[in-house]
């Protein structure tokens, strides 16, 4: 093997404390080194040309560059090597700058260390093997989990780019939390009005396969080649036959047994229902838990009135398998449960605010329903308890958020804005009403956001009080809100008719189990982790799985939408090629000597290890060995060290290479 050695001065960054010409001289003396040279700037064009010319002239098989950190210029030198016809993995970098010249003063010591670092790199490169990038075929179909605004946006963008989409939503209708909202800040335009057309578009899009009332059960495979099993829960309505006429809903005798969860339990719904009138798909669901038929076997009113024979009491959950190349997770959020919780819950709740005890102490989403024209009060602001119009409302921000003692230290980001909006809406609808907002800080970063809050204060006379509320109790039909005005430095007491709590956003139920199903990491609250907080915010650490919306952290609508579009474009980028190229730094099992203990499987963070049967000449399985799926392996090498017989090799860091480095210490 012929090795070329190139020592970079990095201007004077290296050469000021390392005698570069001497290092090059010494390296020339090592066996295998055909050519050794030092140069002012190896990464410059002349420097790279020096490398390329040397490769041609001396017919080099491998090169070692003594320069800055490989994190800096490994790619540069690999590209130079490739253009001169050498495999990029036959390039080793000795870090003479960050690990040597910059950190040592003593010329003698750092020159010696530089020589030793070069010796290690030379011995390693002798054992390097040419590697080629791994090609994996790509299934050009995306799975979007969650049919809220983020999921809808991601699905539409991907579908409009020409790729098939499977959109899975666990509720009977898509729309998510946005469909529950009344108006949106800072424009105060009607939430449903802007959302519904998008929902219809999803429904009618030829590339989108919509699966509502469904959940992801299992995810196998890897980037470009996921196999997803989806459980479609039984609706007990034949979707092909149902026309959405709603006769079954009107005739259902069960009227007041089940709370309407879309109305945030402020209203009831029948046993057969659609969540809301604009639901997509407009197909009802029969709730087995309240339907008389499932209890007594009688009734069957819906069956009688349905002229299309769409009612199917015997329907069972079904499993569907989809092959997809990418997954966009957009499972969204739910609100912190403010009722006082027993000890087993992760969060403590706010017993002192009396939520659940006093009917007029409500959370933000309940207020949205009350303020919504399609809500239970048809948009009139009324108290849930007695239907009276409240003359004084206290809004309390940061209920749950930014409160370590209650379990959440993060800011839920949107509460400042929606509380301002809700106070504004209240003032618009009840002109003589008073709105008080208890806040810790007002965080109104965003286009037109600060102006919006100012408008609430200045034009709509919303009264902001900086301070926390210690407790709420009922007295003569009023709710006494005891708090503190920290700016005035005195206690405050407000006798409100209604209290609205801006509760924290927390991840949707089952987020953690879904994360385990897909194999993506999540933080201690259950929000999914992005691959890099700044540079890869929409990718999970699992290749091919992208994140959109509030499942990653609290977000408002425009952020969720832009993140969804970003996730969609990541998927589209992935689909731009028929095959996927991956760095070949992956582990490989020596099947001849694998004993099949599967410790590698236990330690693999990515589930890349599979069981493979080894057959003899007659096709009879005689042993089971580990097999590492090259598409899934991320190349950490934990399996290589766990393998007791060292039967796994990590390409680029294999045993011989590391041995050589140690030997050349």
């Amino acid at each position, binding site marked *: 093997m012929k090795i070329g050695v190139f020592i970079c001065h990095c201007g004077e960054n290296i050469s000021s404390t390392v005698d570069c010409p001497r290092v090059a001289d010494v390296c020339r003396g090592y066996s295998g080194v055909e050519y050794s040279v030092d140069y002012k700037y190896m990464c410059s064009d002349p420097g790279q040309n020096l490398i390329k010319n040397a490769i041609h002239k001396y017919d080099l098989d491998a090169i070692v560059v003594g320069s800055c950190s490989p994190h800096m210029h490994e790619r540069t030198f690999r590209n130079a090597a490739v253009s001169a016809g050498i495999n990029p993995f036959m390039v080793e970098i000795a870090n003479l700058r960050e690990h040597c010249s910059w950190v040592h003063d003593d010329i003698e010591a750092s020159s010696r260390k530089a020589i030793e670092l070069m010796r290690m790199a030379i011995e390693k490169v002798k054992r390097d093997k040419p590697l080629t990038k791994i090609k994996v075929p790509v299934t050009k179909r995306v799975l979007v989990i969650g049919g809220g605004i983020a999921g809808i946006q991601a699905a539409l963008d991907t579908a409009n780019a020409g790729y098939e989409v499977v959109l899975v939503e666990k509720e009977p209708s898509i729309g998510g939390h946005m469909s529950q909202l009344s108006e949106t800040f800072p424009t105060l335009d009607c939430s449903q009005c802007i959302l519904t057309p998008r929902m219809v578009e999803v429904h009618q899009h030829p590339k989108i396969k919509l699966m509502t009332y469904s959940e992801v059960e299992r995810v196998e495979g890897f980037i470009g080649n996921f196999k997803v099993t989806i459980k479609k829960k039984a609706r007990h309505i034949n979707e092909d036959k149902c026309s959405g006429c709603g006769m079954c809903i009107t005739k259902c005798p069960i009227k007041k047994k089940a709370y309407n969860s879309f109305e945030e339990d402020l209203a009831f719904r029948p046993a057969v229902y659609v969540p809301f009138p604009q639901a997509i798909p407009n197909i009802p669901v029969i709730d087995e838990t309240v339907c008389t038929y499932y209890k007594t076997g009688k009734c069957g009113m819906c069956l009688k009135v349905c002229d299309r024979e769409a009612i199917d009491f015997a329907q069972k959950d079904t499993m569907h398998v989809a092959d997809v190349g990418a997954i966009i997770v957009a499972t969204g959020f739910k609100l912190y449960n403010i009722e006082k919780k027993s000890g087993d819950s992760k969060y403590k709740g706010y017993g002192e605010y009396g939520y659940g005890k006093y009917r007029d102490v409500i959370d933000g989403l309940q207020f949205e329903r009350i303020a919504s024209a399609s809500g239970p009060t048809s948009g009139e602001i009324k108290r849930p308890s007695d239907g009276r119009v409240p003359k004084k409302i206290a809004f309390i921000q940061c209920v749950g958020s930014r409160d370590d003692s209650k379990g959440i230290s993060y800011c839920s980001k949107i509460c400042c804005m929606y509380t301002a909006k809700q106070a504004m809406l209240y003032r618009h609808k009840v002109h003589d009403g008073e709105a008080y907002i208890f806040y810790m800080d007002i965080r109104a970063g965003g286009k037109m956001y600060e102006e919006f809050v100012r408008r609430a204060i200045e034009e709509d006379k919303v009264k902001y009080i900086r301070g926390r509320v210690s407790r709420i109790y009922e007295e003569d039909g009023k709710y006494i809100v005891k708090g503190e005005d920290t700016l005035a430095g005195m206690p405050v007491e407000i006798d409100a008719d209604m209290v609205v709590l801006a509760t924290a956003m927390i991840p949707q139920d089952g987020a953690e189990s879904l994360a385990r199903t897909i194999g993506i990491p999540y933080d201690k609250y259950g929000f999914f982790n992005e691959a890099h907080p700044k540079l890869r915010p929409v990718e999970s650490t699992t290749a091919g799985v992208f994140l959109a919306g509030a499942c990653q952290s609290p977000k408002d609508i425009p952020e969720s939408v832009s993140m969804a579009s970003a996730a969609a474009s990541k998927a589209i980028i992935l689909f731009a090629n028929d095959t996927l190229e991956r760095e070949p730094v992956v582990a490989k099992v020596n099947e*001849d*000597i*694998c*004993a*099949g*203990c*599967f*410790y590698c499987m*236990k*330690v693999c963070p990515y589930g890349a290890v599979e069981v493979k049967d080894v057959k003899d000449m007659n096709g009879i399985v*005689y*042993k*089971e060995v580990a097999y590492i799926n090259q598409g899934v392996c991320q190349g950490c090498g934990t399996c290589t060290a*766990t393998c*007791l*017989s*060292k*039967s796994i090799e990590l390409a680029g860091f294999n*045993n*011989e290479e590391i*041995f*050589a480095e140690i030997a050349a210490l």
Partner: protein
Amino acid sequence: MNELIKHARELLESGEVAAVIGYRQVSAKRTKPVIITDPEETSALVFNEYCLNNLAVYLTKARIKLLCKKNDKVLKLAITAKPCDVHSIVALIQENQIDRDTIHIISFNCHGVAKDFGFDFNGDNLASKCITCETHKPLYYDKLFGEVMETPQASDTAIARIKEIESMPHNERFEFFKGEFDKCIKCYACRAVCPLCYCQRCITDKTIPCWIETSSHQRGNFAWNVIRAFHLSGRCTGCGECDRACPADIPLSLINRKMSMEAKNLFSFVSGRSLETPTLVGSYNEKDNDELFM
């Protein structure tokens, strides 16, 4: 003993098992493993205080597994196992080497075995592992024989030895173990008798690169014995076969015992005691000891 023979005979005759791995008597105080496939030969089977071998080592051997394949059918393998040998079987099941379904465990209520062949069975000559044994009744079995009898009392000299070594300064300890390991002739009997050393090719047999020098000089011996002990850390079930097999009388199970104690201290784990507990190697706890790390 007749019950054991009868049971083994029934198993073989019914065609349920392909072979019975057991012990036969060769002299008054010595038994020897025997692999029986013919019902007629079951009469040789015995179980007593001289059944020292840990027969679980045979379960992973390809040639023994081959015995079970008859006309496309995989028959069971019956094994007579002391309660402590069952620990090895559990560890092997957890490490995917055998299926619980294909092993028929014939076990015994055990009151200890002699430390080696040829010794009278009494407190002075009790095998070291039996002194601290807590499983006189097997944790898993398909058939149980034997009466519950009292184990002779003996003092735990191994633990005293470990304490003694721990009290030495580091350089003395190093010299002590260097001297012990220097006796090693690299016959690998410790590896051959260990039920958990089932690797198809041991790390020491791999010479490109040569992580463990194959020469049996001090350094090669040191590397081999340290890595052997490390590979068994958290896995060793403490059967003590390595000690018995070693022709150079290196106190191998002393190190194994020490590492088992560490497994218990650090991770509250004892190998081979439960099929449900995840193995120590290959699992982790976010709360594992972090003191070691700066």
